[in-house]
């Protein structure tokens, strides 16, 4: 066994000249062989050695064998019963939502765990039954198969290589340049076509709209000179409540969204705006006697003690809305950036490097707050084309 067998064919006999020498039986001999004989022949061909092959229960019909049989069957019966329970529960159990504390809430909350448990136990039962069968009832055998890790014989390798070389020479592709090149062109263009079909849809020019490109503007941008108001959101996009300057007490914050009067009867657009990623704005009313530092160019963006900052963190775009009304800090929960609300929301701690974008606000003749314009810089995290400020 020291040298690996060269091949599964005749030359194996040369390396192993002992009793393992393979005799390939004729068709007539094969017809006369029993099942056991055939298995033994197969084992010899595949180099398998059966070390031991002992039945678990040499005497059939003992009480121990019956018990093992019952145990295996028990798993399968469990699988069947649980499968049946799963079907019944899936169809008949009360699955519709019931609030906590109301009649039937226990039954409702048990629905998902129950279908999971029953289906899981059913699958588990089948698997456990099969494993238990092989462990308890199948004969306890130990067989060893030798690994054949040698390469093909030298003759096989040489002849196969020669066949390939000859095919290449006979094709004459090396000589017929026109065919070779036109075939290359066809293959190349076909590959390019497949690539275009697969990835072409992903290639978009985000700057097609110039200064109105999506990364540069938000829903706060006014269209056709229409005024964009600040609105509250209470879960129902169609329940539009505008904000007056006096609605906020000192030291309070309200998350506001843009609203245009022309959208009032457009439920789809109303819902879109309150859920769009770049429109949430924190409207903050500072406490009195807080020293305010304004950013150059944004001196008139606030309305009295009301300041409106984008909720989108300038670091990675998380909603940074943990407003502390005594320290006037706005904390971002993702990476602990902190912004100073009374100093143009400049970053004072953490990875954020730019202040939050500030929305210029004013009050109309009926006292409602509106945005005088869109943000003067892109909100949220930076990008290559962003003009730094």
């Amino acid at each position, binding site marked *: 066994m020291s040298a690996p067998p060269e091949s599964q064919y005749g030359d194996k006999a040369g390396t192993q000249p002992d009793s393992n020498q393979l005799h390939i039986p004729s068709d007539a001999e094969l017809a006369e062989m029993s099942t056991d004989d055939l298995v033994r022949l197969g084992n010899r061909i595949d180099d398998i050695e059966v070390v031991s092959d002992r039945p678990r229960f040499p005497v059939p019909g003992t009480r121990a064998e019956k018990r093992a049989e019952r145990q295996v069957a028990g798993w399968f019966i469990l699988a069947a019963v649980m499968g049946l329970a799963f079907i019944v529960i899936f169809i008949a159990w009360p699955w519709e939502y019931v609030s*906590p*504390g109301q009649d039937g809430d226990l039954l409702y909350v048990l629905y998902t765990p129950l279908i999971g448990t029953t289906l899981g136990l059913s699958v588990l039962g089948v698997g456990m039954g099969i494993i238990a069968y092989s*462990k308890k009832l199948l004969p306890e055998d130990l067989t060893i198969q030798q690994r054949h890790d040698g390469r093909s014989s030298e003759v096989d390798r040489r002849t196969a290589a020669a066949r390939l070389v000859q095919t290449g020479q006979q094709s004459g592709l090396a000589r017929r340049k026109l065919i070779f090149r036109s075939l290359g062109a066809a293959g190349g263009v076909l590959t390019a076509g497949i690539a275009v079909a697969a990835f072409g849809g992903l290639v978009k020019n985000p700057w097609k709209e110039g200064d109105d490109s999506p990364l540069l503007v938000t829903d706060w941008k006014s269209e056709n000179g229409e005024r964009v108001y600040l609105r509250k*959101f209470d879960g129902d996009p169609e329940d539009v409540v505008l904000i007056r300057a006096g609605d*906020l007490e000192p030291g*309070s914050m309200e998350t506001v969204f843009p609203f245009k009067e022309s959208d009032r009867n457009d439920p789809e657009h109303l819902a879109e705006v309150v859920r769009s990623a770049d429109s949430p704005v924190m409207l903050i009313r500072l406490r009195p006697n807080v020293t305010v530092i304004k950013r150059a160019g944004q001196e008139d963006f606030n309305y009295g003690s009301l300041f409106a900052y984008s909720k989108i963190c300038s670091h990675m775009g998380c909603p940074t809305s943990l407003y502390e*009304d*005594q320290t006037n800090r706005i904390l971002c*929960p993702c990476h602990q950036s902190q912004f100073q609300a009374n100093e143009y929301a400049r970053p004072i*701690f953490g990875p954020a490097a730019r202040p939050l974008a500030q929305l210029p606000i004013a009050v109309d003749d009926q006292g409602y707050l509106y945005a005088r314009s869109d943000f003067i810089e892109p909100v949220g995290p930076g990008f290559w084309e962003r003009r730094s400020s």
Partner: protein
Amino acid sequence: MSDQSPRPRRLWARAGTKTRRRVAGFLALGVALLAVGGLYTVFQPEPETARAQDAALVREGQSLYDNACITCHGSNLQGVVGRGPSLIGVGEASVYFQVSTGRMPLKAQGAQADRKKVEFTPQQIDAMGAYIQANGGGPVVPAEPDAALIGSDLGRGGELFRLNCAQCHNFTGRGGALSSGKFAPPLDPANPHQIYAAMLVGPGNMPTFADTQLSPEEKRDIIGYIKSVSPDSGAVNPGGNGLGGFGPVPEGIVAFFVGLAALIGISLWIGSRQ
């Protein structure tokens, strides 16, 4: 009559009409003035101090204040620099929140006032509240039973909670960290009145939510939502253990380690020989 002496009568009547008009005018003016005055007294808004009419309660509150609070908040509620803020205008709601949760009297100056054992009886807290309310007014928690403060529109309450509260208090009220050692506390121990008071006054670094911002009904719905997701709401936990209610991270860790251990155990059992 008309045919006898119409002329002199008309003369008398002319003179009389003038007097009568004058008298009637004065009478009408008097009636109108009386009516306006009466209506004014009927519809006159009650003054701010009306709630603190019980002078005895205010006196009791003042004596409690003088014993427990005066060191940090000053003899005239004006506050002491470096110790405590002014209490003028903070209102009964603020007193109720701070004292009934045990946060006041403060144990030590620090980043955060912790909830701890309550030092005063409800009656004493009422007295202190009346005293503070009598000096400057301020927000007041509705005098209704707990159940009346728990709203029934849990869907709206949940939506408002996620918009206004969840950023600090977590989406099921588990609380969370703030800057420099401060934190937003978990909401389970707070009763409906304390939550209502906290929204009204914004204790510590919490922003204020005036009734113009969150209407009383919206506040009640938010309380209803908080109570419905609290572990002691009586809601059944289908998994058997909420794992702190922090969501997918602890649940994923448990699923990963428990599931992995189970899979390894089963593989070992399948591969074992008897």
